[in-house]
């Protein structure tokens, strides 16, 4: 069994509203797995449950064979599962370089070190700098995050996740707000991640989804509707009806 990430009968209720309805998902190691579905279907909620941002009402999350349902978010990150946020969640008053260095330091376990200054942690800073360069963010490295246009901030959102060198990467609409040309590049960067990195992607841009994914799950009203290869999904009448419309026709 090579599933790196699994959910078992995951349920999340907000009051009476069922946002996640008995979801059991298997994601293979190294998969490029996309999760699609109408607005409000529960995709982000699922990522929140996987990453520990929310606690499920019932059910389990299994990461690399270990039940992590009770683990705190940062412990899941330590075990290699990292997420991005659909709506940017950044450090407004840090420079871009500081923010990414912070993330690298946390991965290297330096976050609790209080004696040597940040600048003396050369490995961490150099790694952060290299990551920024690879995302074409070098020129804004010393700008405050909050003064950047939305698209740039979107890239920092992803840089923070990549800084954690994830084995399982959960991406929530990473390309939203990034112009077409740059979202291509962004996806190329993601695609260049080592093959054994598993990626779960939420995205409404079907061009990107169908180019990138090797498996697609469709969610509707909190429950999994179907899971299949991209070709099969594209042919699936139900998916077309609830979600795709004419998206793939044009």
């Amino acid at each position, binding site marked *: 069994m090579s599933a790196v990430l699994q959910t078992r009968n995951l349920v999340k209720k*907000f009051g009476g509203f069922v946002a996640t309805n008995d979801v059991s998902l298997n994601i293979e190691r190294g998969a490029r797995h996309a999760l699609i*579905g*109408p*607005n*409000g*279907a529960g*995709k*982000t*909620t699922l990522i929140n449950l996987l990453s520990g941002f929310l606690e499920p009402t019932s059910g389990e999350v299994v990461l690399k064979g270990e039940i992590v349902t009770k683990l705190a978010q940062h412990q899941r990150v330590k075990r290699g599962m990292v997420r991005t946020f*659909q*709506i940017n969640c950044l450090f407004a008053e840090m420079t871009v370089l500081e923010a990414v260095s912070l993330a690298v330091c946390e991965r290297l376990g330096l976050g609790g070190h209080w004696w040597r200054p940040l600048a003396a942690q050369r490995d961490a800073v150099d790694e952060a700098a290299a990551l920024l360069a690879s995302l074409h963010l070098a020129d804004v490295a010393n700008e405050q995050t909050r*003064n*950047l*246009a*939305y*698209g*740039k901030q979107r890239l920092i959102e992803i840089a923070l996740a990549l800084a954690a060198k994830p084995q399982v990467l959960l991406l929530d*609409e990473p390309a*939203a*707000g*990034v*112009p*077409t*040309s*740059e979202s*291509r590049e962004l996806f190329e960067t993601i695609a260049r991640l080592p093959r054994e990195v598993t990626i779960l992607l939420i995205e*409404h841009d*079907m061009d990107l989804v169908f180019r990138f994914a090797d498996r697609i799950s469709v969610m509707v009203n909190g429950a999994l509707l179907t899971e299949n290869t991209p070709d099969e999904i594209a042919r699936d009448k139900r998916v077309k009806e*609830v*979600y*795709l*419309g*004419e*998206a793939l026709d044009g």
Partner: protein
Amino acid sequence: MAELLKLENVWAGYGGSAGSVVLEDIGFSLEDGGSLALLGRNGMGKTTLLATLMGATHFKSGRMRFCGQDLAAVASHRRAALGLGWVPQERDIFASLSVEENLSVVARPGPWHLQRIYEMFPRLLERRANMGNQLSGGEQQMLAIARALMLNPRLLLLDEPLEGLAPLIVQDLLRIIGRMVATGDMAVILVEQHAHQILPLTQQAVVLERGRVVYSGASDALRRDRSRLDNWLGVGVH
């Protein structure tokens, strides 16, 4: 048709200690019921331009006329009454108001009312009692659009309205915008990353580069000009 909006030599930016100028010498005009695609790469000033029309930036100099009035002289909160409706890029949903309150709190009389909105976005009807901060990303986007429509504006400013919406909804929305443009009920300015989706819908296009207008003319002409599109908006635009 009558002229609705006219900008001449507009300079604007952000206040504060640094006091940066983002928009330089902007000028274009829009007819009543007209439609305009506002294009440009990341950080070129599209959002800033819409925010300037709404009075949410630091206006330095120039002239902005809307319905024959000097817009710069009108306080920000009165511009909605004049007929401007705004869908901010960051959605800016009121977190502590329910979906329905978000809509009714800004409502003005006109053809768009709650019922019609709910017909257009049934999802919002389902979630009407939810608080603004308990919505999915796409639901927030719908709500932002719906909220601006509740103002019954003469000119609708849409800042990347399609972002984060499911394909089916995008298609619906484009159809509705197309219809509005065709009937001339409401003028629109549309900011979008996906130029290919909106250029067919709009009559005019303006392209910004580093805060300056580098193209202002017919959408059609721009759509066919692949090399300029590539140049201004980056590779890979259909």
